[in-house]
């Protein structure tokens, strides 16, 4: 039995910000100038204001996207999109904002930031990034990452991500996050220097723990089931929604053909001609109205997608708990077996199998001095083991407490956001009906005049 390595996690201390100003100033992260629609204001609103975030009011926005070419790690030409992140500080008195920082980042850097946060804040439900590749695509949407619509929706998603992190009571204090917004060059090196990749739990280890853990906290088990259900139901919903959108598109667009044919037909008709012609025009209007409708729906889909990805973040927290719990259980088991060995050596009874025991039986007894030495080693190990177990236990409890606090916060946020999203979806449908009524009323008038 060797010395257990010092728990790497104990050494893990995320870099925190030095306080920049008066301790009682509050943070308000508001939606930046280019954000579209009220839907993106979610994380910045209401409930977050009471917490003590950054000590200056700031606004973050991802305001532009630009195509760039450069050389990648293998020295090959590549095209990618860079996003402009602007940070503004809002002065208390007059509400005017002053641009404090502005830099360009690409998607992979966002990923790096998030992976860092995942390692250093395993008890936090870390906000997800917008999807890497377009999924749940229906036929009109391009699956191409360079497509302007996709880039635009990604821009909004990235802004949303930053706002969520900035309005999180704990994450917002992180230095690497601060540097992400303020230090363009060298940021990647700085992140990598933290060595976070090495500290990440191995996937295999985590999987193993999930299967073998005996007594995880029941709440986490339930949460895991919930997040599985959430993920499965939202992805099913998004898949079907995409198909529904496709079909609806078809229905509307085919009507556009009426426009063309009516117009051609009206040329040979005397009495019906005018009616046909103007009805045809309304058919065209009807057919083109679907584009705006479905664009709005795409935003709705993005809101659902965010929570689809949040489900994964929830699972990550559960996995961490299982890992810690498993670790704890293994340590306890190990300690128990060592204690038993010690007892057996002391009393001379052999209840547990050990190689040493076997060999002594086969090749003769060990000397009392040897036995004493062994007992001593074991006793030291037991001592250390007990201390470790104690601190692991405490860590485990801390983790559970902190994680659960964040999970509660997340639940409220989720219920609020999704409710809003669903209601705005219903509103969208009503407006679609209104448009439909108008167009068909106009068309009907034309038909009846034929």
């Amino acid at each position: 039995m060797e010395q257990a390595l010092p728990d790497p996690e104990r050494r893990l201390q995320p870099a925190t910000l030095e306080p920049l100003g008066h301790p009682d100033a509050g943070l308000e992260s508001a939606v930046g100038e280019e954000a579209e629609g009220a839907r993106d204001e979610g994380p910045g609103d209401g409930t977050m204001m009471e917490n003590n975030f950054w000590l200056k009011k700031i606004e973050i926005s991802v305001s532009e996207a630009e195509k760039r070419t450069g050389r990648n790690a293998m020295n090959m030409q590549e095209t990618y999109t860079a996003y402009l992140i602007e940070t503004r500080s809002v002065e208390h008195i007059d509400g005017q904002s002053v641009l404090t920082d502005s830099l360009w980042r690409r998607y992979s850097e966002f990923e790096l930031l998030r992976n860092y946060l995942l390692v250093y804040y395993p008890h936090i439900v870390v906000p997800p990034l917008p999807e890497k590749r377009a999924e749940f695509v229906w036929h009109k949407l391009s699956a191409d990452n360079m497509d302007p619509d996709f880039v635009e929706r990604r821009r909004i998603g990235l802004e949303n991500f930053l706002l969520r992190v900035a309005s999180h009571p704990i994450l917002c204090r992180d230095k690497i996050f601060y540097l992400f917004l303020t230090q363009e060059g060298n940021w990647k090196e700085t992140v990598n220097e933290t060595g976070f990749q090495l500290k990440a739990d191995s996937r295999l280890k985590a999987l193993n723990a999930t299967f073998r853990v005996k007594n995880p906290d029941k709440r986490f088990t339930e949460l895991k089931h919930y997040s599985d259900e959430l993920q499965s139901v939202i992805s099913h919903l998004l898949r079907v929604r995409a198909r529904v959108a496709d079909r609806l598109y078809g229905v509307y667009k085919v009507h556009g053909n009426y426009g063309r044919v009516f117009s051609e037909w009206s040329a040979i008709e005397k009495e019906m001609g005018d009616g046909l012609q103007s009805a045809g025009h309304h058919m065209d209007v009807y057919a083109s109205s679907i584009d705006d409708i479905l664009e709005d729906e795409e935003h709705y889909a993005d809101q659902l997608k965010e929570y689809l990805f949040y489900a994964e973040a929830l699972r990550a927290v559960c996995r961490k708990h299982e890992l810690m719990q498993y670790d704890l259980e293994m340590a306890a088991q190990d300690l128990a077996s060592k204690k038993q060995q010690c007892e057996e050596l002391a009393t001379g009874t052999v209840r547990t199998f050990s190689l040493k025991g076997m060999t002594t039986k086969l090749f003769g007894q060990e000397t009392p001095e040897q036995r004493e030495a062994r007992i001593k080693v074991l006793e030291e190990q037991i001592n250390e083991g007990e201390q470790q177990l104690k601190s692991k236990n405490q860590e485990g409890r801390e983790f559970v407490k902190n994680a659960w606090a964040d999970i509660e916060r997340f639940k409220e946020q989720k219920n609020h956001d999704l409710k809003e999203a669903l209601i705005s979806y219903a509103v969208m449908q009503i407006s679609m009906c209104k448009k439909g009524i108008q167009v068909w009323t106009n068309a009907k008038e034309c038909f009846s005049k034929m």
Partner: protein
Amino acid sequence: MEGECRAPQARSSGLPAGGGGGESPGGDAPLPGSSGSSALLQAEVLDLDEDEDDLEVFSKDASLMDMNSFSPVMPTSPLSMINQVKFEDEPDLKDLFITVDEPESHVTTIETFITYRIITKTSRGEFDSSEFEVRRRYQDFLWLKERLEEAHPTLIIPPLPEKFIVKGMVERFNDDFIETRRKALHKFLNRIADHPTLTFNEDFKVFLTAQAWELSSHKKQGPGLLSRMGQTVRAVALSMRGVKSRPEEFMEMNNFIEIFSQKINLIDKISQRIYKEEREYFDEMKEYGPIHILWSASEEDLADTLKGVASCIDRCCKATEKRMSGLSEALLPVVHEYVLYSEMLMGVMKRRDQIQAELDSKVEALTSKKADTDLLTEEIGKLEDKVECANNALKADWERWKQNMQNDIKSAFTDMAEENIHSYEQLQHTRGI
């Protein structure tokens, strides 16, 4: 020898003509001869406020209208003509009611076929009874149509539904196909009943009233298959000729028919496609709603909102279903009928051209003095009348057809628009969560 029993003849013998009693002008002075009757008609027309276009059917050449049938020419009495004209615009005076229903499958060793029940109710004197019930199969309808075409080559005979539809048909007799066909056959017979001339066709009457064996023997009395085939070959040659000397108005008509045919075919395709897209939209929506219910099972706070969305989607499904049935009941059959009509019209044009060509070839023969001049002159005289008659019949029927087409298309599309408006209005009210 079948004759076309001219109903006017029966009418003038004083039998009641469906409710028109009160409006008969001193009907006891039937005026023979064409010009007299038209003058009288004019007077009556003003009183009854008739559509003048319809009158062309009963103009001075009306008596020559059916030269190509085997019946002797009968003078039309003004009383009978007025009563005929009335049918068109005052449906309450309709005296022939036909329904087609109850499709039934018959299996024999050779074949399987469907018959339809046809019920006729009438108050017309020339019918032996006031109610008839017979069974007919598609072949019988085909026979009737051919007879009508022969008897009235330049009238626009209503179209029959297609023999079969190749695309997407697995089994010849699936329910939707039968139902669609039944409705179309119903329409076919009613259109004939509403047609001022065709309604009195003798074959039509036999079709509606004869028992199965009677019909078979009646059918055998027509021109044989061989003679019909012989006519076809000649007809093709003739029609090509007739095209060249087509008068201006018929050129215009032909032009219209060509473009109309194109456009109505496109509209048919578009409408079918819309139906298909609506159906697929409906299928997806049916899956969409329940997912929200499923989700609501894992949520607490969100459960109500989710259920609300699910019920909206459900409403949407129902509205779509309604739209679909509106389409398949009103718009699609009407548009499709006019697709078939446009094919009919091309046939009518051809036949007109043939008749004209016959005349032209005889005239040519006369000028080249190749055959007996006297005989030719006589024949030419007859043919000239025939051509004029055919042209007039077509012109009149054309106007009538166009008017009907306009009305049918207008109401079909107006109904569709109304359906859509209604659909959206329904949805609007249910969306409030």
